[in-house]
């Protein structure tokens, strides 16, 4: 006696053995298989015949595996890489702000000094936003996915190292208004390095994505 559920279970095992191990494609394929079996059975075929036809139509496990393999980096991984870039830029924009604001509100600073401080922050933000918006047009398209991912990870790693060993060796302060502006400017530039590195990681993904879209259109 033909057992449809057992047959589908066996088919699933064959798919797993062939290497379709990620849950989403396999689940989608199984749902598709079940829908096709149901349609075939409604048209009058036996369960066994409907199963055989449906399995044949869905394709050989090895062929499907090789097609899925061509897809490359899962969407989730690509999102993580891009998200890391966004985090770098957000950190680079907001961390100096928390430092600049109290200094700008300090009563002992003259208006000129405050305006210069504000200008430093504005330059930092503008540079970050512009590099964020346009860097993918200037960056090379790295088609090799593992290499592109490695460059991105190195950029984010460099960001962390820069924050740990580059930025916090120096914290602008001091009580004299005249001595604070140069350190403040340097501090702004230091955060721009973080934004730049994060922008490179993100921009490489975006450049590759745009190129990929154009090539396939």
């Amino acid at each position: 006696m033909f057992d449809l559920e057992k047959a589908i279970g066996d088919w699933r095992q064959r798919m797993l053995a062939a290497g379709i191990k990620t849950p989403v494609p396999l689940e989608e394929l199984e749902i598709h298989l079940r829908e096709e079996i149901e349609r075939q059975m409604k048209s009058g075929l036996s369960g066994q015949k409907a199963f055989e036809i449906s399995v044949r139509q869905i394709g050989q496990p090895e062929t499907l595996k090789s097609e899925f393999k061509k897809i490359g980096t899962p969407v989730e991984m690509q999102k993580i890489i891009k998200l890391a870039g966004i985090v770098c830029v957000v950190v680079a924009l907001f961390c100096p702000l928390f430092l600049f604001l109290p200094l700008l509100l300090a009563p002992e600073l003259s208006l000129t000094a405050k305006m210069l401080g504000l200008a430093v922050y504005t330059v930092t933000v503008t540079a970050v936003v512009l590099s964020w918006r346009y860097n993918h047009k200037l960056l090379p398209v790295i088609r090799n996915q593992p290499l592109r991912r490695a460059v991105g990870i190195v950029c984010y790693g460099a960001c962390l190292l820069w924050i740990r060993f580059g930025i916090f060796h120096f914290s602008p302060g001091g009580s004299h208004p005249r001595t604070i502006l140069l350190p403040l400017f340097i501090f702004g530039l230091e955060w721009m390095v973080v934004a730049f590195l994060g922008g490179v990681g993100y921009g490489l993904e975006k450049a590759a994505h745009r190129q990929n879209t154009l090539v396939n259109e």
Partner: protein
Amino acid sequence: MIRKELVAASAEPLILSLLAKGESYGYAIIQEVKARSGGKLQWTDGMLYPVLHRMERRGLIKSRWGESETGRKRKYYSLKKDGKTAMVRHQEQWSLVHGVLSGLRKEQHV
């Protein structure tokens, strides 16, 4: 039957054009393509999913899990903004090819 190279090349524009009508799922996409082509455009069913996943990775379409009216789980796909742009470009290119072929065929009959 249509050659497999042409079937493969037409997969993306067909999927994009079908999804432009509204969200859909793998099985329904295949059935609609079969029906509209009178069964002449036949995909190996399982091959649709790598294509859908690739298009999703390229940001042309997006997906969500939902349920059919009978409670069966389904993954629904819908078009994204980049997908609409890609669809328009595909349609222009296919129209161009069609136009050239039609022109040449007319000349042969003259």
